[in-house]
């Protein structure tokens, strides 16, 4: 029984290591194919589908996140007479962590699943084979445009998230916590700087790339059948979210030492 469990654990570890290796190889192939012939039309189509169409849900999520963070922050800060720091605290949290990470998570759920499902269904209907037979590299044709689209659009979404999150905080701070507009925005000016924004955008570029690569990988390696498609989409979302959270810690360490 113990040996069986150990074998099962060993198999899972080996599988994880193999998957990590294959994902790394796919990433290197994508980066290699960036220098090849790129179709701007394909990239723009993906930017529209993956980026622009994700804006409503990102705005909604981050608006309410900004509002609730301010609610909780204001409660504590007002108790200790630190209401003049509420704006700054909310802005720094939003710019450095909440906007890039939560935007990444929302987009991973929406876009990561969509990419995996699309590529998986292309695989099971032999469309990937058809591309190869027609002398088209599936990585250059399918993966690279999605990688570029996600890496470009996620920072754009994060910019919108930064604005809407801060505005959401402003609404709660002024209408509910009784903090003046001047105090709120002055606090942001004092505590937040441009590097907080750029650090968040650098994270967003990385997260966008992760979502695209993981989605394409899970789609290309999915098993046949409806169950295979389901597993691929779930695995794409879960893996992307885990990598976003883990890498966020290390990126924060690197960027905000």
């Amino acid at each position, binding site marked *: 029984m113990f040996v069986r469990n150990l074998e099962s654990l060993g198999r899972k570890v080996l599988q994880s290591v193999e998957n990590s290796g294959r994902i790394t190889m796919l990433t290197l192939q994508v980066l290699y194919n960036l220098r090849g012939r790129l179709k701007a039309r394909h990239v723009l189509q993906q930017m529209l589908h993956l980026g622009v169409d994700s804006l409503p849900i990102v705005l909604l999520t981050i608006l309410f996140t900004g509002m609730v963070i301010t609610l909780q922050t204001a409660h504590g800060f007002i108790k200790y007479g630190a209401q003049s720091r509420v704006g700054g605290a909310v802005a720094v949290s939003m710019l450095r962590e909440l906007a890039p990470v939560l935007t990444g998570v929302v987009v991973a759920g929406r876009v990561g699943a969509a990419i995996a499902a699309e590529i998986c269904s292309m695989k099971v209907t032999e469309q990937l084979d058809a591309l190869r037979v027609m*002398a088209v590299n599936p990585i250059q044709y399918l993966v690279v445009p999605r990688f570029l689209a996600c890496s470009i659009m996620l920072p754009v979404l994060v910019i919108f998230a930064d604005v809407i999150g801060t505005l959401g905080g402003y609404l709660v701070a002024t209408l509910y916590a009784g903090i003046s507009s001047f105090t709120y925005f002055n606090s942001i000016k004092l505590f937040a700087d441009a590097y907080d924004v750029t650090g968040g955008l650098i994270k967003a570029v990385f997260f966008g790339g992760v979502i695209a690569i993981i989605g394409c990988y899970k789609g290309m390696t999915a098993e046949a059948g409806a169950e295979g498609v389901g597993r691929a989409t779930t695995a794409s979302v879960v893996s992307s979210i885990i990598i976003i959270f883990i890498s966020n810690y290390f990126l924060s360490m690197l960027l905000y030492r």
Partner: protein
Amino acid sequence: MINLININMDFRGKQILYDINLKVEQGETMVIIGPSGSGKSTLLRLIIGLLKPTDGEIWVKGQEITGLSEDHLNKIRLNMGMVFQYSALFDSMTVGENVGFGLREHTDLSETEINKIVSRNLRMVGLSGRENVMPNELSGGMKKRVSLARAIAMKPQVMLYDEPTAGLDPIMSGAIDRLTNSTKRILGVTSVVVTHQMSSAFAIADRIAMIHGGRIIEVGTVAEIKQSENPLVQQFIHGLKSPNVSAKKRREVL
């Protein structure tokens, strides 16, 4: 044109092809028949380089392809076309975009010239005016014909067909067989067709190779295959219950 030499193929730890030797001459139509799971589609995928054999050599147009990189294989694939069993049309594109796909990716032709070729190819397969239709609006037979129109758009020298008449009614199967023959007549292609429909095989083949249990057990012209003394061949082409049926019983079945 195509030469398979001592091909052995393993898949997920199980050997599925044993010492396959097969030569397809330029301009001929070689039909590969055999029971389901005998390795027919695997052979097609080996010829076009979608799979690599465990052992052996594959020569296509004088070039050995098993050791080639994907980039070099792509250069050879520009002269090849394939019709997939379930058509494999790109479902995010219209019929016209599917047929013109190869031309847009690999040539510098203008949109007008590409549209002309697309119209001509669709006319050839009896689907004039369907350029703006989406694949999910087509029947199985129509999808197959679009797939053929797409495969011949780059004027290939080698055509591969994976069960081109599978799932089609007899009338549509006959139409696909006639298209296969006219493609050969007009373009002079070398064709390899995988099928287990004997009516199709006899209608289009110059030679037939039967594969059974991963081995080629017989190669010959249509007449030679019909007269074959191999009981497995006779069982397959007549759809008999067992290979041990006597010649008298076989005549009764016909």
